[in-house]
């Protein structure tokens, strides 16, 4: 199973197997990784599943949809490498993905 490493804001890493087809958000939620709230359950409506994606991986991700770009535009802690993790579906090619969590989702 492909692995994702989630790194908490304080630096604590969590290496998690995420089944292909599930979102990166689901992988965190199903394993109680702190730092991802996912209030809307993956509907791209809340922006509380915000992560920073390691530069090396950014180009390998599916492109942002319009909804995602707009939601991220006003996230207090957004950076150029911000993504909503519910919009990233796991594939074998993403094995080894590293994402970091912002200090707060609100």
């Amino acid at each position, binding site marked *: 199973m492909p692995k994702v490493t989630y790194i908490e804001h304080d630096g604590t890493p969590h290496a998690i197997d995420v089944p292909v087809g599930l979102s990166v958000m689901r992988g965190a*939620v*199903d*394993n*109680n990784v*702190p730092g991802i*709230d996912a*209030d*809307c*359950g993956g*509907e791209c*409506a*809340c*922006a509380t599943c915000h992560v920073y994606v390691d530069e090396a991986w950014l180009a390998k991700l599916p492109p942002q949809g*319009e*909804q995602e770009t*707009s*939601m991220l*535009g*006003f*996230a*207090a802690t957004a950076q150029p490498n911000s993504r909503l993790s519910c919009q990233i579906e796991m594939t074998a090619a993403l094995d080894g993905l590293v994402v970091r969590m912002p200090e*707060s989702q*609100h």
Partner: protein
Amino acid sequence: MADDAGRVLIVGAGQAGATAAALLRQYGWTGSITLVGAEAASPYQRPPLSKAWLAGTATDADLRLRAPGFYAEQRIDLRTGVRVEAIDRAGRAAILADGTRLPYDRLILATGCAPRRLALPGMDLPGVLELRTQDDATRLRAALSPGARLAVIGGGYVGLEVAATAVRLGLAVTVIEREARLLARVASPELAAYIHAAHAAAGVAIRLSADVASLDGAGLDGAALDGAGDRVAGVRLGDGTVVACDATLVGVGAVPCDALARGCDLACDNGIVVDAACRTDDPAIQAIGDCTRRPLPLYATTGRLESVPNATEQAKQAAAALCGRPPPPPEVPWFWSDQYDLRIQIAGLPVGAVPRIVRQTAGAFSVAHLDAGDRLVTIETVNAVTDFAAGRMIIGRRRRLDPARLADPACPLAQTMLPE
């Protein structure tokens, strides 16, 4: 003082209860966590029950809040299909119907809401449905065969989402609303009119200012029988007209499940009364989610909110307080609804008659509510995610806006902010 080694008992394994259990572990609670829920299913999300799951595009697996093995892995003792009948505050235990006592050091009530029932003849007829649980949704889905006629009593969010799903599945749908407009208690007249137009265009018949007198059944010979019969066949209105139907969804709001709290004399006022850390007036008992009346610091008032974001915010507040962590930053209340291709997102609370400014472009619509000082208090948006996201941020910062610039939909909301 935090005592993170005690026994926590959470009553109600819905959105709020399940989230609180998970967060307690995240925040380092080392004691036992027992999560009891009356429903047989593992904790799941309700929003899709009137949307994607009802339409058949989301699966049961999509509904679950956490993976199946989650609770065991997190040492959360999940007991489904178990209803708590009473709380013994002096003895610090929850009591089940068979007399079993579940002891606690800390109790969290997360019992949610139940659909409001109408006291009308015919409410118990087969084919008269309500929607709160997955079992309810299963019955409703079985009634949604193409060509059938569905009457929806109540033009609130749940009723309208079901109407949208049903008409797209090929049913003939009539929405019956007592008030003079849809969404009367929860949306501005402008937003309600916009949504009304979408339903009308989709072919939903809408009866406003319509009182329901009874639900009429049909006898075996098909003859209408007031309030009786084998199965619902029509909704009789106050003016005597009958909306013929094969099934009826009653969606007239929800009432808080506060029977346990009342039964043990906790303060209740349309919801269990809690503070910003979700404490009730018993220091050992907190309450979270749809069943609470909570402080709304941005609006200097209290209220009962029925939304997933509210359930998760209160779960955070309660778990943080129990684990001795600083309280989470206050959130701007928000809500979403999907109907047809309309993504409706609302931030802030509609707080009565305040000046409103409509921003409309092709395909996008939003209504900004300003207070007397031109501060944004609410933003209602339809397919206008930029206004929603910016508006939520602006409301939280209590910023003043320039009404003239706001009225120009081409001017981004964030650029209408006046200097502080």
